[in-house]
Structure formats: C-alpha cells, structure tokens
C-alpha cells in the first residue's frame, strides 16, 4: 500500500469576521459567506503566507521522515482554503526538499491549460529533478477553477480529453510534430524535456462521483482516487470501475483504487474532535462550497447532475454526520486505525491519502499529528493492508 500525506495548504491566517462582513470593495455578486472565488484578496497577507508556506514545506519533510510514502499536492485558485495556486510549483519544491516520497499530483487541472505541451515540459522536469518520483494526476478541475482561470466550462470535458491526449503524446512521441485539434493548436511540438519514467509518469485520476470521469480512468487503466466519498458512493464507483476495466480487458485490483480521507488523529479524542472542527470550519462553514453556479457552472455537467450535487452537499455538512458515515475519521490512533480498517476491508484501496491537518491548525499541532501518524497509525495500516493483500 502506498500512503500519502495531504493538506490543502489552507490560508489559516483569516479571521471568521472576514468571511461574513460585506465591504464597499466587495464584488457586487458577493453575499456574506461567499468565500471562494470573490472573497477579496485584500485579506491575503503575504507576510503571513510566507510563514505558512515555510511551515507546510517543513510538514512535508516530516511526513517523509516519519514514513509516509508520498506527498499529495493539488491546485486551487481564488480560494482561502488552498494556497497552492500552481501544482507544478509546489511539486518542484517537494522534489527539491525530499528524497524518497512520491510526489502525488492530484491533480494537474488540464482544461485550464491553454498550452498542455508546457505542462508536459514542467512535469518532465519535476520527474527528472525528483529522480522519477512523480505521479502526474490529472483533473477536469472544479467549476470555480473555470471561472478563476476564465476557461469556458461548456468545453471542460472536451478540453480535458484533448489535453490528455496531447500530454501523453508530448511525453512519449519524439518531435517535432504538429497538433491541430478542436481546442488545442500547436505549430511545433518538440519539448526539450521528457520524463525519466518510461513510457511516462504514472497517471492517476481523482474525482467525486462523475460517471464519465470514472469511465475515462478505467478505460485507460489509470487508478481512480475517490476524494472522500461516502462508503456507498465509493462502492458504487468501484463497481463501475471494475466493470469498465473488465470491458477494457484488464482485471482491476487494489492498485487501481485510491481513497482520500480526512483522518484527524491526536493523543486524545477531545483534541482530535477539536482539530476536526477546524477541518470543517475551513472546508465547510468558512470557505464553503456554497454557490452551485460556481461549483458546477452551466455546461460543466448536466442540469440533472448539477441540481443533484447541490442537494448532496447540503446533506453532508455536520461533523457528527461525517464521523458516523466515516467520511471523517477522527480520534486517537487506536480509534483511527479501527475506522481505517473498516474502510480498507470494505473498499480495498491500494493507494491511501490521509488528510490530517486543515483549517487554522497551528504548525506545532500539525507536526504533532504527522509524528503521531508515523508512530502509531502508518505501521498498523500497512500491516492491515498486507493482511488484506492491498498492493499499490
């Protein structure tokens, strides 16, 4: 089993008041609590952020020291819940500051790139600099990312598919050659950087429940990573993935199954619950995912899928409900291991991403949680994975 450490890298220097007050400088469409996309960056303090970046990078180093196999990085824009504005930048930093861990990008937001050949170059550089440790995940990117990057959401899926094909070709087929597609047009493709890993770095595809994305991953043999989905949805996803894999001609196993879970561990249950509330404050109450038209703009997915998603988000918000459903795993190491065993037994992933630190959790508490994971969670989870035959 390959276990990665993840944090959104929240901008944890915000005050609660910043979220709910309206100001004369606010965008006319903003309502109190709208903190993704148009929450003014006047509230972004680069001095505080410089400290936070340094702390996050130290946390990644510690994750490697205590035994994590990978560090998972991602990308969001205009959002206080994530300071990673460019996934390849943070991947480069991790490549330079670590020696052993996989750099798990989940993922590169393909449709937001107007020149995927440049992405092929950047990922190839990271793969070489890290001595072949790159996992180049790819995503459609959420709706708000389309707005923040001003990329037409109606062509999101088409651009995802075409950028993928172009990326793979740029990694694997010697140039120079020309690309004239529907959304991408490249006069001369001849990147002077190609990946160390052959034929190319592993590609993983994270997602929530989008049927088309699961089908895409399975039909290409790419591992699919369920992003903190419910047990019911996760099982449904694996059912569909396995079916498509069989139709494609391979038997899917744990090595194709990834799962990201918020896993908040502390010496005492009380402290773990307190830290878990920080998670929810940032991803729910504060940063929110409230506006359906930002999460899934018209054209990004079907009308039915979008209206269903809004109802789902509303139903899944309380801490108690999430702990009960297991979408938040919270407690002492023993409690957390028991709950993770349930996930492993029921859904059989070979790729596990643990997300312990978020919200306004301070650096010391974050380091403490990482140490505790290394001492008391990772060895037990690896042992369970071996017992269950969950190989990556």
């Amino acid at each position: 089993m390959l276990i990665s450490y993840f944090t959104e890298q929240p901008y944890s220097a915000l005050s609660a008041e910043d979220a709910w007050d309206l100001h004369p400088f606010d965008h006319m469409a903003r309502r109190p609590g709208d903190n993704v996309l148009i929450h003014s960056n006047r509230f972004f303090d680069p001095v505080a952020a410089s400290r936070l970046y340094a702390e996050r990078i130290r946390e990644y180093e510690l994750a490697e020291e205590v035994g994590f196999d990978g560090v998972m990085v991602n990308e969001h824009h205009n959002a206080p819940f994530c300071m990673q504005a460019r996934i390849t930048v943070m991947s480069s930093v991790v490549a330079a500051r670590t020696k052993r861990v996989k750099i798990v990008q989940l993922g590169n937001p393909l449709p937001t790139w107007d020149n995927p050949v440049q992405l092929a170059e950047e990922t190839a550089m990271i793969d070489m600099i890290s001595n072949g440790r790159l996992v180049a995940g790819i995503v459609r990117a959420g709706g708000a990312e389309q707005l923040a990057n001003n990329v037409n959401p109606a062509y999101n899926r088409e651009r995802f598919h075409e950028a993928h094909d172009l990326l793979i070709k740029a990694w694997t087929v010697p140039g120079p050659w020309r690309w004239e597609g529907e959304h991408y047009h490249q006069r001369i493709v001849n990147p002077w950087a190609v990946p160390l890993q052959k034929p190319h770095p592993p590609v993983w595809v994270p997602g929530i429940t989008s049927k088309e994305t699961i089908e895409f991953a399975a039909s290409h043999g790419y591992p699919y990573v369920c992003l903190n989905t419910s047990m019911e949805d996760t099982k449904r996803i694996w059912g569909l993935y396995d079916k498509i894999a069989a139709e494609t001609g391979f038997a899917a196993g744990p090595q194709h199954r990834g799962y990201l879970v918020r896993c908040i561990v502390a010496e005492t249950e009380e402290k773990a619950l307190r830290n878990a509330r920080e998670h929810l404050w940032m991803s729910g109450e504060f940063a929110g995912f409230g506006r359906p038209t930002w999460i899934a703009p018209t054209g990004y997915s079907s009308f039915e899928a979008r209206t269903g998603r809004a109802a789902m988000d509303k139903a899944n918000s309380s801490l108690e409900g999430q702990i009960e459903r297991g979408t938040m795993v919270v407690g002492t190491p023993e409690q957390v291991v028991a709950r993770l065993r349930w996930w492993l037994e029921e859904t059989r992933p070979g790729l596990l991403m643990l997300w312990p630190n978020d919200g306004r959790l301070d650096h010391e508490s974050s380091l403490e949680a990482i140490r505790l994971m290394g001492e008391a969670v990772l060895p037990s989870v690896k042992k369970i994975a071996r017992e269950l035959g969950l190989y990556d």
Partner: protein
Amino acid sequence: MHAFRQAVAGTEIDVLSDGVGPRLTILHRDTGRAGWTGLHARLAKHFHVIAPSLPGYDASGRPDWLRNVADLSALVGMLDDALEGEPGAWLGHGFGGWVAAELAARSPARVTKLVLHSPMGIRPPEGEIFDQFLIEAEDYARLGFSDQATYDRQRADEGEGRSARLDRNREMTTRIAWKPAMFDLGLPHLLRGVSVPALIAWSRDDAIVPRSCAEAYRDALGGRLAEIAGGHMAEYEAPDALATLVEDFLGC
C-alpha cells in the same frame, strides 16, 4: 400565430410568426424566447412578425460546432433566406441585439432598419456588462426586471420547465459568448460601415447593460438613442412604450 420548425445548415430552428405587412424579425435575449408575448402580438398588428428561438435556445436544435456569435448570426441570416420574402426590419433585445448587429454588419442587404434594445455585443466604454455567470440563472432573470411584481408574474406565467429552459439557454450563451464576456471587439469597427437606419433603445433601470454600451452603438451606427422605462427586460415591463417607439421608428 403560427409555430413551425425550419432546418438551416443541419439545425432545426423553432419559429413563431404572425401578422401581415412589412417583415419584422425579433431576436430574443440570452434568457430565451418565452413564447409569444404581448409585445409580439402588438407588433403583429402592423408587421409580419417572425420570432425564432435562436439556434441552441429553447426548443431549437443546438449546433455543437457553433463557437461564436458571428456564426450564430450567419445561421439567422440563412433562416431569413429560407423563409423567403423581402428584406425587413430587425429588432433585437439585449443579446439578441448583438446578434442583429452582427447580421447587419455581415449581411446588410437583409436589413432595412435596425432596432437594438439594450444591446450587448460591444465592450462598454464605461461600466461593465453584468457577469451573469457569477449568479444563478434565475437570479440573473430577476435582475433583468426593475419591478419585482412584473418579474413574479412573468415567472409564474411560464410555469414548469422554466429552470431547465433557462439553464439550456445559458449553456448556449456559455458556448458562444464566454470570452470576451458578451461582446465582440471587432463589432464596433464593422458597424461603422453599416448604413442601415438604426434606433438604439436603452432601459433606464437596466442593471445588466450600461448606458455607455448603447451610446457606443449609437456612435458606431449613427442612429438615435432613446430611453424607455423599465429594466433590461423592458419588453415585459414596458411593452407598450417599447412597441410605440418601434412603430414610430419603422413608420406605421
């Protein structure tokens, strides 16, 4: 009133039509054409009114290849050909005004007179065209009205299926007018070469298209700018005032 479908370049276009007299084609805004309205009925007393749902809007087919408003206007021109008859006048509301202006720039022979009501399509020299994509489709529709009661009535009249229709229409607008957001940088330059008589109407309480946009049209086309009461969707709020303005300009 007659309802029919006309195929143009592989796309089925839904058309409503009524009245006798000089031809007047009315192009709806980006929220679509919610049936045969009071404004249509009144103008049909003096004109042969043709009110298509633009390709990709309402019940018309969606040409998946269509990426810009200029090509949309070419399809509308082909519809005009298919329906035969003499060149006529064109009235466009909001986004439909943009389509009509593109058509006039590219096929001036089809157009005898042009009425553009709070038209989008030109980058406003001052202010901004409101970014509908930041708010829900229904909230955008509401923003088009200065009078809440008229909005409530219009919404209630439409009944079931409205949300899905607004969504489908917004998707088509997304496909063809996402960037630049609701304008064409070349259009004002092309319009300087259009000699068709033009009337620009702007709604006094328009919260979506700023007055400067209407002024830019006036400056490019050399026509007259008239203000009317109501919000961006004044065809629902002040249909008689708008109809009178159109009738006076077109001469009847």
